[in-house]
């Protein structure tokens, strides 16, 4: 017979305090993780109650699954999770649920669940209810290792999110980013990959020289990046699971802006080996290198359209940096950014209908979202040096780099204006976020 967690409000309050200070449940990796703060936009969110999961007698799960799910849902900006201290009852089984209690508390949806031992791991089951209609919208059991419990919680969050919004969730995705401490020759730079909630940061590369421009392969297994470790810019492609990496571009001049084609077979990049920064595409299998632009201006920051047919890039050929589009085999380029005298680092939304970019507004560098059908630009950020925007794979949010309190931090903004969050480390700079594709 499962035992309910009897003092959840104290536990939850403790969890909130720990969460706020960047600590957390269970064994944390030694590396500083990213602390997430939700910075607003939750007024229009749907209320949902995620009841602390019941546990079998004597079992101490390594993760408070309900707390992880509540935080995941709250971060989307679309949900407001009920604090545990406001719950009148904490059912863990269907037969103990009285949905009227929850509708009286204003909850549209309710999630209950249980954790039971399964060999050396756990079996985690949950039910998602529509509290008003009385329907079970989802009822699923997942098997998890001890180490995989946070990921299991994120997968449950994504199932709930998809059931309630019709859109795939991104709780079980990851972000790559660059950290830096110190200055100049004394700096320590790392490339890291962490879960989308900032947990489980893993250092992929560390160096005393700059590391730039991480880019995910479409299958989420590899990351391309620029490293100056040999005292000059070079592009590497590294497999995350094995740590094995390949040097793919180390020409004279700059080697920058790697971008995988949607089929993962090619890497677009910027090289200045022919005298000036231009866009090239490297076939990762045949090693054939094709030059796509040939202009005395700067051409850089290539990004593929989701169908792989087109490449957008930054060029100052018209006198100021603007976004241009060409076929992915090269050919004539057409300017697509219209507003402003500085537009750069554009990338497509997953549906290909809009792009995010860095735009200068009254001397401030901000993140803009351009609707390609209507040509209309909307600002997603309000900092002064915002950069490196990267779409979540479901297109719901954009993560970018900004400065807060004089330090480099990451921020994420909902496309629909629903929610914003800030991700920072306790010390040092965080920059150049790249959101992974879907990983399962």
């Amino acid at each position, binding site marked *: 017979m499962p035992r309910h967690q009897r003092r959840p409000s104290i536990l939850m309050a403790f969890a909130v305090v720990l969460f706020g200070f960047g600590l957390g449940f269970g064994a944390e990796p030694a590396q500083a993780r990213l602390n997430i703060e939700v910075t607003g936009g939750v007024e229009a969110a749907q209320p949902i109650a995620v009841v602390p999961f019941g546990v079998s007698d004597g079992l101490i799960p390594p993760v408070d699954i309900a707390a992880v799910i509540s935080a995941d849902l709250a971060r989307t900006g679309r949900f407001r999770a009920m604090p545990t201290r406001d719950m009148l009852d904490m059912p863990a089984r269907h037969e103990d649920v009285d949905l009227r209690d929850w509708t009286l508390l204003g909850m549209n949806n309710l999630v209950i669940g249980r954790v039971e031992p399964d060999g050396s791991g756990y079996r985690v089951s949950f039910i998602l209810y529509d509290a008003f209609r009385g329907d079970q919208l989802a009822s699923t059991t997942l098997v998890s290792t001890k180490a995989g419990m946070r990921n299991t919680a994120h997968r449950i969050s994504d199932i709930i999110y998809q059931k309630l919004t019709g859109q795939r969730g991104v709780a079980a995705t990851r972000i790559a980013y660059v950290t830096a401490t110190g200055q100049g020759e004394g700096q320590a730079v790392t490339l890291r990959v962490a879960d989308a909630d900032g947990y489980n940061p*893993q250092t992929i590369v560390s160096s005393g020289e700059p590391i730039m421009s991480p880019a995910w392969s479409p299958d989420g297994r590899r990351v391309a990046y620029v490293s100056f470790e040999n005292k000059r810019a070079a592009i590497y492609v590294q497999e995350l699971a094995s*740590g094995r*990496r390949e040097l793919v571009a180390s020409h004279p001049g700059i080697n920058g802006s790697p971008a995988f084609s949607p089929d993962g077979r090619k890497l677009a990049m910027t090289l200045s080996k022919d005298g000036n920064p231009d866009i090239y595409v490297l076939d990762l299998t045949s090693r054939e290198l094709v030059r796509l632009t040939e202009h005395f201006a700067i051409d850089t920051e290539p990004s593929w359209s989701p169908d792989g047919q087109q490449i957008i890039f930054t060029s100052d050929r018209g006198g100021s*940096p603007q976004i241009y589009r060409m076929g992915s085999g090269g050919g004539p380029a057409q300017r697509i950014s219209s507003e402003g005298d500085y537009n750069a680092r554009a990338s497509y939304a997953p549906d290909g209908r809009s792009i995010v970019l860095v735009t200068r507004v009254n001397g401030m560098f901000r993140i803009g979202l351009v609707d390609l059908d209507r040509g209309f630009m909307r600002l997603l950020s309000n900092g002064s040096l915002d950069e490196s925007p990267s779409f979540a794979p479901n297109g719901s949010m954009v993560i970018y780099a900004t400065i807060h309190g004089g330090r480099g931090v990451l921020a994420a903004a909902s496309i629909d204006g629903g929610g914003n969050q800030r991700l920072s480390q306790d010390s040092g700079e965080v920059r*150049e976020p790249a959101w992974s594709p879907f990983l399962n």
Partner: protein
Amino acid sequence: METIIRSSTKGASRPGSAKTSRVAGRFRAPRTLILLSAVFVAGCSSAPKQQTEPVTSPVLSAPPTTTAPLESTRPVYAGPWEDPGNPLYQRTIYFDYDTAEIKPEYLPVLRTHARYLGTNAGVKAKLEGNTDERGTREYNLALGDQRAESVRRLMIADGVSPNQLSTLSYGEERAANPGHSEQAWRLNRRVVIQY
């Protein structure tokens, strides 16, 4: 109007540089020269080295890839550019925002270095291009490359052999001053001549 910058170190100023007013016509390498340089660079460019590094254990347990520079030592006294009384001591020139055009007041500095390199054919120099933090990192990497390239072309036009010169852009990654104001930015928009 932007203040004209001198090297921040004493003894480094060049006669007249501080008071030179901005001249409309700035140096820009002639197109033929650009083409010639481009042909030269194309000639020296090599195919990417396709080097596969050894497999390490999976990322969950693997120590991260740690990189180390190939060379890190410098001699105590490397050459006359280290002597504050020598005209070669000024090895940094500064740029206006978002441009790779060399300001006229730096032409004497660059010609001094070009003359030195022309006389000493065995000496090599690395031209390091940098930008301020405004704008995107990869655009700035390209802009730093163009700044270093502008200096390289000028020096070649002044008679320096191309194989004495190399360029390296750090973009905005190696700020001389980490601040977020114009005072910091103007010190960061620079090319440094490294012997």
